[in-house]
């Protein structure tokens, strides 16, 4: 099927079989390897992308279903100040080990802070419930997200 959608702010037109997942389209066909392939069952969140700004598991979306919609991956937020603050906090607070879960984790955290700039710890936990990390034990990830929220807040006049 011919599909047209917005990927990281740019219009993309491509061909995709109906049974191709958005994950395979992004990762294999379009080369966006920041979108990770984990369980392919909606359990791990490694494949998380933003669909019209909301986190979804790209392994549970069919490529033609994004027709006319906006998909955002980590690659599209390189220059975004909020994402920059999150990245910095994750690095400085030791929230990254192997890194496999991190793109998905950052996108879930980004979507949270966009809607809710000062989340409680409970709210942070809920936001990343769908992102499994095998390495860190989550504590430092939660701290980094809270920290990023604070940094962004302090930068504002």
């Amino acid at each position, binding site marked *: 099927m011919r599909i047209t959608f917005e990927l990281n702010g740019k219009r993309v037109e491509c061909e995709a079989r109906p049974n191709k997942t958005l994950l395979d389209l992004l990762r294999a066909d379009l080369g966006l390897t920041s979108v990770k392939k984990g369980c392919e069952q909606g359990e791990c969140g490694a494949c998380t992308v933003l669909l019209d700004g909301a986190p979804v598991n790209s392994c*549970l979306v069919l490529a033609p279903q994004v027709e006319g919609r906006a998909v955002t991956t980590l690659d599209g937020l390189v220059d975004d100040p909020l994402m920059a603050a999150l990245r910095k906090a994750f690095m400085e607070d030791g929230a990254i080990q192997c890194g496999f879960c991190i793109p998905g984790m950052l996108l879930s955290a980004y979507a949270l802070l966009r809607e809710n700039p000062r989340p409680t710890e409970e709210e942070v936990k809920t936001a990343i419930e769908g992102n499994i990390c095998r390495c860190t034990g989550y504590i430092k990830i939660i701290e980094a997200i809270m920290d990023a929220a604070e940094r962004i807040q302090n930068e504002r006049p």
Partner: protein
Amino acid sequence: MRPIPSFSLHRPKTLSEALELLQALEDARPIAGGTDLLVLLRDGAVSAKHLIDLGGVHELQYIREENDEIRIGAATTHAQLLRSELIAEKTPLLHEAAASIGSVQIRNRGTLGGNLCNASPAADTAPPLLALNAEAAVASTGGTRIIPLGDLFAGPKMNSLRPGELLTEIRFPTPPAGSGTSFQKLGRRRGLTLAVINVAVYLCLEGGVCREARIALGAVAATPIRMPAAEEMLEGRQLSGELIEAAASACRDQVRPIDDIRASAEYRREMAYVLTRRALMDAWERARRDTL
């Protein structure tokens, strides 16, 4: 991972277009959020030649109140339910159930209609809607029929829809003043997990007397079910801790759970008692607050 077997995908814009496709095409199946169906297709547990995507049928996404009745479109997502003030205020049990489903990612895609039509005995929105006495609107090219929600469930992972039919709406009376509800879910962990069992309760009080009681349990039988024996013990009576204890005990005797990977039948039976008691106490408390 094995790839998803091939099918053709149709993306109607209106309900009537979707119903015509479903009627005309052989071996066709609706897909809403795909959070159940894509997993089943990949596993080979389900197959279909044609998928009819309800994602573009915006007329199936709404939450509204009309004439003391709340109506929800079948393609409404769990995230939309969670954001609805009407649902949070009037039916906290449905808000709590939606909040307990999967993860943010799953709630952004998964729909109410998909949760019910998938007909898992553990579906989290089923007990709350059974306790709210919900009805389901089922449409085909021939017209629409209204059935009690309980009749939608035919068995584990089996719904009663006929070929060519779609669930279009769930509706239930707005709970009146003096009513209280509760949803309780026990999982193997806090998040991202199907229920070992789930319980929903609706109570309506009139001067301390229980006018109406509805109790529904999930994952304790082939389908989500109401507990009429326990409900009768409460109706027309002055509520008390002892009476609630007795009604919860009756649920333990009525459930027919199975052993599976999530829990043993024996454990589920015991938890049916514990969670029903908890839900009844909670709903009672909320109903009393609502009466003040």
